[in-house]
């Protein structure tokens, strides 16, 4: 990779020398003197500062070459970098997201290939020739109408589906028996608490932070006593999870990319987001896309002599929050409901911890 760069540097230096030489060269030129006779003189070599027919030809062809190169780049990225993209959605609501993504990309992909093709092909085909007159074609109401209404219709349909998906994801009012979890962000780590047996979170505020009550649960609130603070998220497969987010200090963002979930954590406000996990951690680890990803990652890690990676769901911070913004993470484990409840039973409530 670096070799490529050194080659470029060498080319750049050579190019620089060549061009400086050209710009400072003197040579024999034939000029006309006042008597309109031809005279040979030594002068700065001057080229025509305007594009000549030769220039038009060269750059027209270069545009065509650029188009081909661009198509190759796009195809390469779409096919070879495709595997780098996130695997199948690990939440049920995220499936709609992924469908929408796919449709959108197909649409913009078609438009991209078509318009870039037309643009650069025209740049090549109509490269300037001397004494050819261009076509005086200033307007066409028909064309304008077509390329206003067609995008309008296509976009309306796309956005219609988009809004349906958005409402489906964001509307938590009809969630049946959700598990309510608070996720608490601070510089620079995450904490969470489960709502306990009453499935209601107690009030929380930074003014209640004291000792082991690091997330400020209001101990006078009856709903709060049975809340269970944790530093690792466990989620039951197949149940709707409703997250309530708080922040202790600055803006953070709870980003759970595998679930297609993200929501800012805002100090002074409780924000929310919900999804239903679809695959347990174990199931996800066995998926083909994940296996390939882990293999790629471990290849890199082995070279650097680092511990091998095993797939885990992750919560990361995605809103600039200070120096360690790049290292603010919490592990998420998705398991069968039964395993989830037995894990939860083993955790202590805040009431127990404070005692």
């Amino acid at each position: 990779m670096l070799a490529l760069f050194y080659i470029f540097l060498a080319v750049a230096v050579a190019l620089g020398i060549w061009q400086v030489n050209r710009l400072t060269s003197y040579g024999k030129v034939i000029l006309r003197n006042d008597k309109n006779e031809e005279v040979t003189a030594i002068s700065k070599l001057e080229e025509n500062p305007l594009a000549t027919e030769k220039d038009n030809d060269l750059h027209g062809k270069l545009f065509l070459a650029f188009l081909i190169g661009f198509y190759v780049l796009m195809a390469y990225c779409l096919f070879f970098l495709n595997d780098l993209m996130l695997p199948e959605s690990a939440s049920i609501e995220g499936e709609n997201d992924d469908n929408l993504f796919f449709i959108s990309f197909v649409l913009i992909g078609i438009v991209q290939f078509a318009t870039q093709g037309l643009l650069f092909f025209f740049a090549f085909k109509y490269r300037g020739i001397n004494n050819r007159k261009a076509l005086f074609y200033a307007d066409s109401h028909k064309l304008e109408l077509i390329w206003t209404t067609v995008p309008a219709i296509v976009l309306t349909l796309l956005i219609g589906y988009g809004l349906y998906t958005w409402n489906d994801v964001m509307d938590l009012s009809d969630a049946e028996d959700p598990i309510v979890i608070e996720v608490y962000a601070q510089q620079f780590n995450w904490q969470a608490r489960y709502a306990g047996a009453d499935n209601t979170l107690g009030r929380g505020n930074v003014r209640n932070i004291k000792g082991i009550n690091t997330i400020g649960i209001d101990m006078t609130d009856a709903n709060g006593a049975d809340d269970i603070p944790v530093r690792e998220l466990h989620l039951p497969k197949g149940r709707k999870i409703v997250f309530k987010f708080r922040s202790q200090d600055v803006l953070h963002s709870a980003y759970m990319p595998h679930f297609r979930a993200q929501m800012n954590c805002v100090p002074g406000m409780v924000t929310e987001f919900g999804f239903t996990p679809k695959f347990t951690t174990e199931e996800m680890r066995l998926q083909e896309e994940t296996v390939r990803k882990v293999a790629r990652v471990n290849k890199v890690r082995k070279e650097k002599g680092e511990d091998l990676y095993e797939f885990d769901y992750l919560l990361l911070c995605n809103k600039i929050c200070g120096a360690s913004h790049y290292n603010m993470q919490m592990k998420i484990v998705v398991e069968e409901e039964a395993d989830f409840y037995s894990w939860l039973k083993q955790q202590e409530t805040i009431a127990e911890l404070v005692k």
Partner: protein
Amino acid sequence: MSEHHHKETFVTKYIFSQDHKMISKQFLITGIIMGVIGVLMSMLFRLQIAWPEHSFSIVEAFLGHHQTDGVMDPDMYLALVTIHGTIMVFFVLTAGLSGTFSNLLIPLQIGARDMASGFMNMVSYWMFFISSVIMVISLFVEAGPASAGWTIYPPLSALPQAIPGSGMGMTLWLVSMAIFVASSLIGSLNYIVTILNLRTKGMKMTRLPLTMWAFFITAIIGVVSFPVLLSAALLLIFDRSFGTSFYLSDIFISGEVLHYQGGSPVLFEHLFWFLGHPEVYIVLLPALGITSEVIATNSRKPIFGYRAMIGSIMAIAFLSTIVWGHHMFISGMNPFLGSVFTFTTLLIAIPSAVKGFNYITTLWKGNLQMNPAMLFSIGLVSTFITGGLTGIVLGDSALDINVHDTYFVVAHFHLVMGVSAIYGMYAGVYHWFPKMYGKMMDKTLGYWHFWITAIAAYGVFFPMHFIGLAGLPRRYYSNTAFPLFDDLADVNIVITIFAIIGGIAQVIFLVNFFMSIYKGKTAVQNPWKSTTLEWTTPVEGIHGNWPGKIPSVERWAYDYSKPGYDEDFVMQDVPLKEGEEES
């Protein structure tokens, strides 16, 4: 006014000039200097991203105590991306682009002696200069410059305890930007008044070149939206310095509960983006206006769909004021708002598409002159389409959930701003250099500049979409904290290498620009054989622009290759022939 004889001293001609042509050059040079600083910063932080724990002597040389053994500190990384963004968006692409070309071209293309107020114009430049100086000074503050991102959301930007750059660095940033906003507003008012009031005889609004329409509408957007940024900044100053709680509430930091109560960071986001979104169109529209001019001239064809282009500019401008929430889909605001903003954002795609199609149709059956300005304009259409299409993904709220604040966004906005708008600026410089300096820039250097930049630009920003789709967040000092992202390291290295190549390629432009001022071939009066009024003024550029009477205008600006004429262009001040119809 043409009889205005005043003795010009060195100071009144070159420093405190009220001549729009000199002021435009002042804006350009200042913009170029700030651009160099901005690019240098991007080189530094790209080095950090590609080779996170590697020691670089260049890092050691530039970053003082903000680095350890050649590895930059995390705070400084955030400071660099913050100031990079601020400089590029405001100082280079707003002042450097609008300031330069609005000033240079408005009086010349509408047929006026100078701007409506030469004095206010001069003040506008010097305020810009002062704000630039303050922004650069903020780099040398002990605790570091502002580091909360160019979007400076509170509480991070309000509390020095949250990040050191939010101390004096942030204060200087706010002072600099307040002066910048004032400069921009004064300039915009001047542009609007001049275009409305000082057009020469016959220059109806519908005969104005598209460049004028673009600068005019851009100035209007500026006047409407910049004051809101100022208000956002003022409230932030109050929270920072006077203990108010506009944006702050319930904060526990450095072991104590702060006193703030009742404010919301989301308020700041609304106020900021109410400017922030129109701002990106303030950046883009002038570039599109320049492109219309350059493509028409170099295709020897009228710009296709002149009226539709004007309509599109107006539609984009109007819509740009009602889409700001698409930056805030997951801010915690009511999801219903998200639906509204998705809808309006979709609408803005339509006039943008119309412009793209019109540019391509202008090329069709043209006779394309491949001057460097033309190359950049064609390049702009390409990157504008690429970047604009990914905007459709980002504007769709459901999709934004997963790509918000990832490298997908970074790729999108760089393609439309960092590449398209810059290409527009370059096209403008190559095209109007003869007007500014009476000389021609070197063609071959221009060609090398374009092609290396074009390849590097796509090499940097196209693959970037994919690491964003892989979930990689932006503004991360290092990607090594998550094994999840280890397989993206190679792509990041390739991006950095292309970025460095692209950065170095801009040296070609700098050399060409400054060398041509002194050693460039003397220009003729109308080198590109363009139809617009600026090419009827003498090459050497005189105070008051035209030596005698200002020409009056008889036709629109795009009579290229018009049937019935031998030459392939007819200037705007040439009367219509008997029986000739105006387009």
